[in-house]
């Protein structure tokens, strides 16, 4: 009997260690990813120091590397993506939680979540073969002639003349669709299902009595959404937006196809560019020496930035969860 319980205790301890070991692998893979890229990038960080972050030169011929162009591309595309995705996701979440008739909610929600299931490389192919040509033919001419400062007919539009910076953002003599703006749009389509499903979920946590009190006082649906639901769920909504930002920053395939892969810094959103992830995808297999190290170094930057963004996202989302328990 004594022996039996001792054996059980030993098994128990072993089992517990096994389980804990597996759980620690989660921690290990995050630390490992950060450590491996930092270690791989040490040569580039050591050689270029702070210039690595601010230099826009990426020249494998002379072995000089600076991260500014890919960093700018990553931030610009993600920013455009959020600018488009946030209002649309909010609209979808509002539609699904307040506007749509009950029988329509489940199928529409399932269809939007289907978007999240499509592999990113399919977005990339669609962007490359379908959307970028469509954009170049139908949208881009309108943008350059109505907003840009180099219109084809030479006549500046009112906006380009009077609003600062806008003219530069939409000027382009590059004939193809692939550009920072198109990459931002494709990214937006990718993150919409994530952001809208988080928003919809948190909208449903709003206590019915709060909403009904407002309705009883004569509020309209919009006033309830804007004045009751949104303030109540604010931190979680911001968390959902940051979650979308985290996705957008690290996305590789959807962006690589439609960014044009140009290592130049341009003020125009209609010019091609590059992002951290697509630079790595394009160059890593053929890179050696200092170039490989520079790619590892930008990967480290990407990982750190995404980690911080996702950390904020999860902390914000958690705040609502703790409110729910009260």
């Amino acid at each position, binding site marked *: 009997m004594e022996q039996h319980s001792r054996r059980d205790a030993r098994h128990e301890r072993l089992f517990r260690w096994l389980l804990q070991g597996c759980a*620690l692998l989660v*921690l290990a893979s995050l630390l490992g990813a950060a450590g491996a*890229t930092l270690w791989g990038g040490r040569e580039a960080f050591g050689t270029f120091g702070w210039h690595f972050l601010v230099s826009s030169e990426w020249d494998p011929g002379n072995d000089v590397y600076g991260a500014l162009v890919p960093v700018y591309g990553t931030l610009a595309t993600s920013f455009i993506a959020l600018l488009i995705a946030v209002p649309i996701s909010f609209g979808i979440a*509002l539609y699904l939680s307040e506007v749509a008739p009950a029988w329509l909610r489940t199928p529409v929600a399932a269809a939007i979540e289907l978007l999240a*299931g499509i592999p990113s490389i399919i977005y990339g*192919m669609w962007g490359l073969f379908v959307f970028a040509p469509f954009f170049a033919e139908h949208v881009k001419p309108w943008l350059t002639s109505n907003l840009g400062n180099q219109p084809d007919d030479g006549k500046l539009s009112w906006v380009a003349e009077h609003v600062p910076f806008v003219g530069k953002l939409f000027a382009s003599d590059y004939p193809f669709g692939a550009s920072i703006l198109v990459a931002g749009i494709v990214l937006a389509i990718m993150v919409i299902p994530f952001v809208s499903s988080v928003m919809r979920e948190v909208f449903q946590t709003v206590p019915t009595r709060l909403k009904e009190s407002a309705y009883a006082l004569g509020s*309209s649906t919009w006033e309830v959404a804007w004045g009751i639901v949104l303030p109540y769920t604010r931190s979680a909504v911001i968390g959902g937006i940051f979650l979308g930002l985290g996705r957008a920053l690290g*996305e590789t395939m959807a962006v690589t196809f439609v960014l044009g892969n140009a290592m130049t810094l341009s003020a125009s959103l209609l010019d091609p560019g590059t992002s951290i992830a697509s630079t790595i995808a394009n160059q890593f297999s053929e890179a050696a020496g200092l170039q490989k190290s520079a790619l590892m170094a930008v990967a480290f930057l990407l990982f750190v930035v995404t980690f911080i963004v996702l950390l904020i996202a*999860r902390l914000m989302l958690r705040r609502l969860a703790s409110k729910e328990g009260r």
Partner: protein
Amino acid sequence: MNALYLRRRIVNALAMLLSTLATLVGLTFLAWILWETLRQGIGALDLKLFTRITAYGEDGGLLNSMVGSVIINFIGIGIATPIGVLAGTWLAEYADHTRLGEMIRFLNDILLSAPSIVLGLFVYTIIVLPSTALTHGSTTFSGFAGGVALALIALPVIVRTTDEMLRLVPSTLREAALSLGVPQWKLTLQILIRAARSGIVTGVLLALARISGETAPLLFTAFGNNYTVFNPMDKMSSLPQIIYQYANDPGDAMHALAWAGAFVLTMFVLLLSLASRLLLSRTKVTHD
């Protein structure tokens, strides 16, 4: 007063209209993407896609890539499932409300959306580089390395579903077993995991759907291969990798093959997520 009322009604109607439009925009893009994949994919579909390998180029198919994808995904799921289920069990049964448990649960959620290309570089550093050094360059990129990279992406999905599913198991089941003197490890393995089985299977299917479409980490772990190989230590092609390569090729015939591959991949992933959703309809869990 009347003017104010009118303005409120107009604002409300406008907001409702805009939110409906936003939903229509989302659905339009979904339909557009699926339609193009179907149209171009079915147009390029023929038998040699499944019978010939990519070494034939324009006259070839994608057989070796499909075989490679199956092997790499199998390795990935094979590694991630036991580790993920055990880690999820630890979170739900042993470390609930402990500081370390909360931290790992939190970090797991971050790993869930971490950039896959960086995880690919991590696996490149810990597997491809050492195996190159150890074998003096005869083994470099390998299907196994690709599988490990995909395992890192599948792991957090499985950990999270297992954790959530186990927490749905009623605690009376645990109390009943413990009162009969069953040791906790036996309770966990033989009762709890069995009770949460369908939920855990759903998590594994979702993880499979997620990794089947992953491209970025495979580019510098499994690399690619024009021939069918079964040895996991060889360079290996995969469906996403060949789609990436062919879509970047200037030839139209290659684009057609890429679309056919994209069609097969999309159908597989969508059917898989449909299957897991059907399994899941019995129990409610979140995946963001």
